[in-house]
C-alpha cells in the first residue's frame, strides 16, 4: 500500500500547498504563477486520485474500507477510552469516487478561471481560496470520523464564505456570503450538537464504530440529555436527526435553501465548484457516509426522504420561471440535490432497507457533478460574452459559440435524463429505487420533476442559444470563444455524456453500504416500464418548451418580449417567480423579529445593564487606583508609619494563633 499512501498524501496536501504558496507568496506577485500553481497542484492531485481509485478498486480490499493513515489529533480520554479526534484518510468506494470527482472538477475549474479571472486584479487570492476550498472538501471526503468531518465541514463553510464574497466591493456579494455562512453555521450548530450527543452515547467518533452499531443494547440504558431523561436509543435517534440537520443546511434543503441561489453573487467558477463537487454535495455525502447509522434510527431516513422530495419539486417549479440563468441553474441544483437526498431516504421500508437507493444516490452525485459543472461553466462563458445574467438580453448565441452550444446540448440532455446521456442512468436508478421502496407518492413526484427538469433546462437552452439575439453586445459582433474557458467545457462534456453507462456497472458492484445492521430486502419488484415513462415525460416536456420558446411562432420578437415579461402574468406565476416570497419571509423574520425584537432586547441589556455594571467597576477600580496613588505622597513619616500599621494589621487579620 505504499503507493496508495503516497497518492493519499499528494491528493490531500497538494491543494493545501497551493493555497499556502498562493496565499502567502505567489498570489500578490503574479496571477499567472498562482494559476499555474493551482492547476498543477490540483492536476497532480487529480491524477493521484485516479491512480488511487484504480489501485483500490482493482485490489482485493474493495469494497471494504481501508484507512491509509490516521493520527490522533485531540484525545478525549477523560470521557471514553476510544473517544479520540483523529485525522485520517479513509478509502472506500464512496470516498474514492468523491476524490476523483472533486480533484477532476477542481482542476478544470482552475483552468477555466484562468480565462474567467483574466482581468481581475485579485486573481491570486482567488486561486489561493479555490485551492483551500478543494482541500477542505477533500479532507471532508476522506474523513475517518465525525470529528475530522466537522473540522473540514467548517473549513468548507469558511472557504465558501470567502469565495462567495470574493467581490467584496459589491454589497450584494457581501450579503450573500454572510447569508450563506450564517445559514449553514446555524445548521452546523445542530450538527455539532448531534456529534456531541452521538459520540457521547457511542463513545467514539469513528464512522466504522458508529455505522456498526445495533440498536438493541441501547433500549435499556437511559441518559439525561438536559431537558429529559430518555433511553439511549432515543438519544441516538435525536442525534441522527441533529446530524442530518447539518447536511440539511449545507445541502440547502428547503427551507434552508435560500442561501444557495443568492450565492450566485460569487464568481461563476465558484458557483460551478460549489454546485457540482464541493459544499452542497457535502450534505448528501454526510448522509451516505452515515447511512447504516441512519438506517437503524427509526424514522430518520423517512424525514430525509420527505425533505429531499419536497425540495426537489419546490426548486424545480421555481426554476421554470426564473430569468437569471445562474439562478435557474441554482434551483436546478437544489432540485437535483433533492433527488439525491430522497433517494437515500427511500431505502427504508418499515423496518427493512433496500440498498438500491444508496447506489442510485451516489451514482447521481457522480454524474450530476460533471453536467452541472459543465452547465455553470457554460453559463459563465455566456455571461462573459453578454455581460449580464438576464435571459432578456440573450438569444441567438448558438451560432456564435458553436463549441459552447454543443456542449450545452450534451449537458442539458444529460440532466434531462435522455438516454444514453449520463443523467438518464442515475435518474432512472433513483426512480426505480423510489418505486421499489414502495414510496409511490415520492415516485410520482420524482417522475413529474424529471419532466419539469427537462422543461426548464430546454427553456434555458432555447432562450440563450436560439431565436434572435436580444443584446447589443452580440448583435453584429463577432465573438471569440476563450480557449481557457472552452477547454474545460469540452472536457466536461465527455463525462457528462459517457459517465452514465461507463460507470453504471462499477456503482452496482461497489457502491453498497457496508456493515448494515438491519435486514435487507433482497427480492425487489422489477419495473421495466420506468425508463419509458421517464423518457415519455422528457419528450412531452421538451415539446412544451419548444412550443413556448423555440417554435417559429414563439420567436417573433413581439411575442418573445411578451413571453419574457413577467409583469403581465397571473398571480400563481408571480408567486413562483418571486420564489414563493421566501427571501422576503426570511428578510422580515430577520428584520422584524431578530433585529427589531431579540437583538434590541439584548442590546438594551448590554447597553444599560451590563455596560453599566462594567462602567461602575471601571470607575470603582480607578478610584481605588487614585487612592493608592494618593497614599504614595512621598512623606517619610507616613511611610515609616505603614510598617507599624502593617504589623498591627496582620496581627489582627492574619488569623495567627496569638
Amino acid at each position: 500500500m505504499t503507493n496508495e499512501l503516497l497518492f493519499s498524501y499528494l491528493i490531500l496536501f497538494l491543494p493545501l500547498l497551493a493555497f499556502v504558496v498562493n496565499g502567502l507568496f505567489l498570489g500578490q506577485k503574479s496571477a499567472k504563477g498562482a494559476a499555474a500553481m493551482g492547476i498543477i497542484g490540483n492536476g497532480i492531485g487529480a491524477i493521484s486520485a485516479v491512480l488511487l481509485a484504480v489501485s483500490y478498486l482493482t485490489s482485493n480490499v474493495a469494497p471494504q474500507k481501508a484507512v491509509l493513515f490516521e493520527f490522533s489529533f485531540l484525545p478525549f480520554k477523560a470521557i471514553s477510552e476510544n473517544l479520540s479526534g483523529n485525522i485520517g484518510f479513509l478509502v472506500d468506494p464512496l470516498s474514492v469516487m468523491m476524490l476523483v470527482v472533486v480533484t477532476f472538477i477542481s482542476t478544470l475549474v482552475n483552468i477555466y478561471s484562468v480565462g474567467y479571472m483574466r482581468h481581475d486584479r485579485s486573481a491570486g487570492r482567488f486561486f489561493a481560496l479555490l485551492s483551500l476550498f478543494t482541500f477542505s472538501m477533500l479532507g471532508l471526503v476522506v474523513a475517518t470520523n465525525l470529528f475530522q468531518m466537522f473540522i473540514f465541514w467548517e473549513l468548507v463553510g469558511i472557504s465558501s464564505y470567502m469565495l462567495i464574497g470574493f467581490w467584496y466591493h459589491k454589497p450584494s456579494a457581501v450579503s450573500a456570503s454572510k447569508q450563506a455562512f450564517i445559514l449553514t453555521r446555524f445548521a452546523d450548530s445542530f450538527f455539532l450538537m448531534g456529534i456531541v450527543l452521538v459520540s457521547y452515547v457511542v463513545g467514539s467518533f469513528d464512522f466504522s464504530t458508529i455505522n456498526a452499531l445495533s440498536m438493541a443494547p441501547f433500549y435499556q440504558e437511559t441518559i439525561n440529555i438536559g431537558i429529559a431523561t430518555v433511553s439511549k436509543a432515543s438519544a441516538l435517534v435525536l442525534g441522527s436527526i441533529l446530524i442530518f440537520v447539518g447536511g440539511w443546511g449545507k445541502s440547502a434543503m428547503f427551507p434552508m435553501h435560500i442561501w444557495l441561489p443568492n450565492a450566485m453573487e460569487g464568481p461563476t467558477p465558484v458557483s460551478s465548484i460549489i454546485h457540482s463537487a464541493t459544499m452542497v454535495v457535502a450534505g448528501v455525502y454526510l448522509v451516505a457516509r452515515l447511512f447504516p447509522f441512519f438506517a437503524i434510527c427509526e424514522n430518520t431516513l423517512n424525514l430525509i426522504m420527505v425533505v429531499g422530495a419536497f425540495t426537489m419539486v419546490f426548486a424545480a417549479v421555481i426554476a421554470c420561471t426564473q430569468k437569471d440563468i445562474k439562478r435557474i441553474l441554482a434551483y436546478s441544483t437544489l432540485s437535483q440535490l433533492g433527488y439525491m437526498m430522497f433517494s437515500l431516504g427511500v431505502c427504508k421500508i418499515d423496518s427493512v432497507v433496500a440498498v438500491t437507493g444508496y447506489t442510485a444516490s451516489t451514482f447521481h452525485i457522480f454524474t450530476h457533478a460533471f453536467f452541472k459543472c459543465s452547465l455553470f461553466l457554460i453559463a459563465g462563458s455566456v455571461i462573459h460574452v453578454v455581460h449580464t445574467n438576464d435571459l432578456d438580453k440573450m438569444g441567438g448565441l448558438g451560432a456564435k459559440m458553436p463549441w459552447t452550444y454543443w456542449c450545452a446540448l450534451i449537458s442539458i440532455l444529460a440532466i434531462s435524463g435522455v438516454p444514453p446521456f449520463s443523467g438518464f442512468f442515475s435518474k432512472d436508478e433513483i426512480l426505480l429505487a423510489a418505486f421499489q421502496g414502495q414510496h409511490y407518492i415520492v415516485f410520482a413526484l420524482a417522475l413529474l420533476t424529471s419532466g419539469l427538469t427537462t422543461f426548464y433546462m430546454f427553456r434555458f437552452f432555447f432562450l440563450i442559444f436560439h431565436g434572435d439575439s436580444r443584446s447589443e453586445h452580440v448583435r453584429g459582433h463577432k465573438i471569440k470563444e476563450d480557449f481557457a474557458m472552452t477547454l474545460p467545457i469540452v472536457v466536461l462534456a465527455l463525462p457528462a455524456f459517457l459517465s452514465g453507462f461507463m460507470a453504471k456497472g462499477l456503482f452496482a458492484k461497489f457502491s453498497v453500504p457496508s456493515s448494515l445492521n438491519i435486514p435487507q430486502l433482497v427480492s425487489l419488484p422489477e419495473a421495466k416500464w420506468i425508463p419509458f415513462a421517464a423518457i415519455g415525460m422528457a419528450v412531452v416536456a421538451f415539446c412544451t418548451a419548444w412550443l413556448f420558446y423555440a417554435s417559429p411562432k414563439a420567436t417573433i420578437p413581439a411575442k418573445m418580449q411578451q413571453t419574457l415579461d413577467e409583469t403581465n402574468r397571473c398571480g400563481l406565476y408571480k408567486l413562483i417567480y418571486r420564489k414563493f416570497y421566501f427571501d422576503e419571509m426570511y428578510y422580515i423574520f430577520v428584520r422584524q423579529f431578530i433585529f427589531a425584537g431579540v437583538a434590541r432586547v439584548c442590546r438594551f441589556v448590554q447597553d444599560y445593564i451590563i455596560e453599566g455594571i462594567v462602567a461602575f467597576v471601571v470607575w470603582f477600580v480607578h478610584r481605588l487606583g487614585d487612592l493608592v496613588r494618593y497614599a504614595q505622597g512621598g512623606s517619610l513619616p507616613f511611610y515609616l508609619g505603614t510598617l507599624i500599621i502593617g504589623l498591627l494589621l496582620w496581627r489582627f487579620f492574619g488569623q495567627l494563633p496569638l
Partner: protein
Amino acid sequence: MFESILLPDLLLLAFPFIVIGSRLFCDFRSAFPWRVANIGFILIFIMLNMIPLASGEGHFFIFNWRLDDFGVLMREVFMVSAILGIWLSKDYFEHGADGKPQMHQIAEYIGAIAFATFGAFTVVSACDLLTFFLGLEIATIPMYALTAWNKKDQMGSEAATKYILMGSVATAFELFGFSYLYGFSGSLFFNDIASAVATNSTSPLLWVSILFLFSGIGFKLTLFPFYTWAPDVYEGAPTPVTAVLSVTSKATAIAFLAVLVFGPLAAVQEQMSPLIALLAATTLLVGNLGALKQTRLRRFMAYSSISQAGYIMIALLGPAEIGKSAIVYYMFIYAVANYLAFFVFGIIGHHREETFASLRGLSKQNPALAIALAIAMFSLAGIPPLAGFFGKFHLFFAGATTGHYFLVAFAVINNVLALFYYIQLIKSAWIDEPEGTLSSLRLNRRQRLIIIMLSIAVVALGFVPFLSNNIFAGFTF
C-alpha cells in the same frame, strides 16, 4: 568534590576585590575592570550550570553552608540578574540618561552588585539564623549605595535616604523576629528550630516571631503595606539599579521566605497560610491598582513588580516541591522579561524622558524595539504562549494544589486588571501618534544583541522544555 561545588561561591566572594583592585593598576578610562567583570560573572554562571542537580539533601560545607538544588537554581537566577544588570548599566557610565548625569566608578559599581549577589547566595545556603541574617544584610546594604550611585542626582540621594531609613526599621523587625525565634527554640540552627516548631506549634513566642519576620521581609519583597518605599526608590534610583533592585532584591527576599517556610517553619505552613494568602491577595491588588494610572515608566515598573511579588507569594502556599520549583521557574522568567523591558526603557531613556509619552510612535520608528517591548509586557501579563503564562500557571497550580481556589481565582481576576495597564503601555508604543518630531533612537551592537536574545528567551522559555524539565523533573528536595 566539595571544593568544585563551592568554587562559584568562593569566586564570587573574591570577585569584588579583584574588580575593584584591578582599578589600582590601570588607567581610570580603561575597559579592563569591565572585561574582568564580564568574564568572571559568565564564568561563575557556567560553573553553576555544571553542578549536577538532583542531589537530594544537598551538600554541607563545614556545618552551616548548604548547597541544595533550590540553592543552585536560585544562584543561577541571581547570576542572570547580575550579568544582565551590569550589561544594562554599562551604557549609563558612557552617557547620561533620563535627565540624569552620567555615572562614574564602574568597577566599584560592579563590586557592589557582586557583593549583593553574594549576599543572595548566602541566603540560599544558610543553615542557621546568623548566616541567614548576614546574607540578607549583605544583599541589602550594597543596594542602598547603588541607589545613590549617581551622586549628582538629588532624587537618587533622597530615594536612598528613604530606602536606608525604612530598610533599617525593617531590619530591626527581622532581628526582633529572629531573637524571638531563638528564644523560642533555644538554638540558631534550622534543624533544631524545625523540631522545636513541630513539637510546640502554638507558642506565642513563635507566632510573634513569624509576624515580625514576615513584616520585615515584607519590606524587601514589597508586600502590602510595606511596599511604600518601592515606587519612590525605583523612581529615584538610576534605571539599571532599579532593574537590579526589582530582580535581585526581590529574588533574594522570596528565596528567604521560601527557605523559612519550607525549612524551619514547615510544620506550621498550614497555620501560616491565611497570613500568606492575605499578603499575596492584598499585595497583588494594590500593586495592580497603583500601576493603573502611572505615567512614568520606572514608577510603573515598581507597581508592576509589587503585584508580581503578590503572584509569587501564592506559590508559598503549595507543597514544598511544587512551590519551590514554581518559584524558581517564575523567577527565571520574571528576570528575563523584566530586564527585556528595562533594556527597552533604557534605550528610550537615553534620548528622552522615561515616560509613557516617550513611547509614542515607537512602532513606526523602530518596530523591532516595539515588538520586544510588546513581548516583555505580554509575558509579564501572562499571555500564552509566552513564558510568563507558564510561569504564572505553575504559581497558581502550586496554590491550587493545597486548595486555595479563592485566592487563585482572585489572582486570575486581578490578572485582567494587570493586562489592562500592560496593554496601556503597548498602546502607547503601537497606537498613539507622537507629538512633534521624535528624537532618533540608536542602538549599539551590545544592546541589539541582548534585546534579540532576551526576546527569544521570553518567547522560547515557555515551550522549549529544557529549562522547565530541568526544574520540574530534575530536582528533588
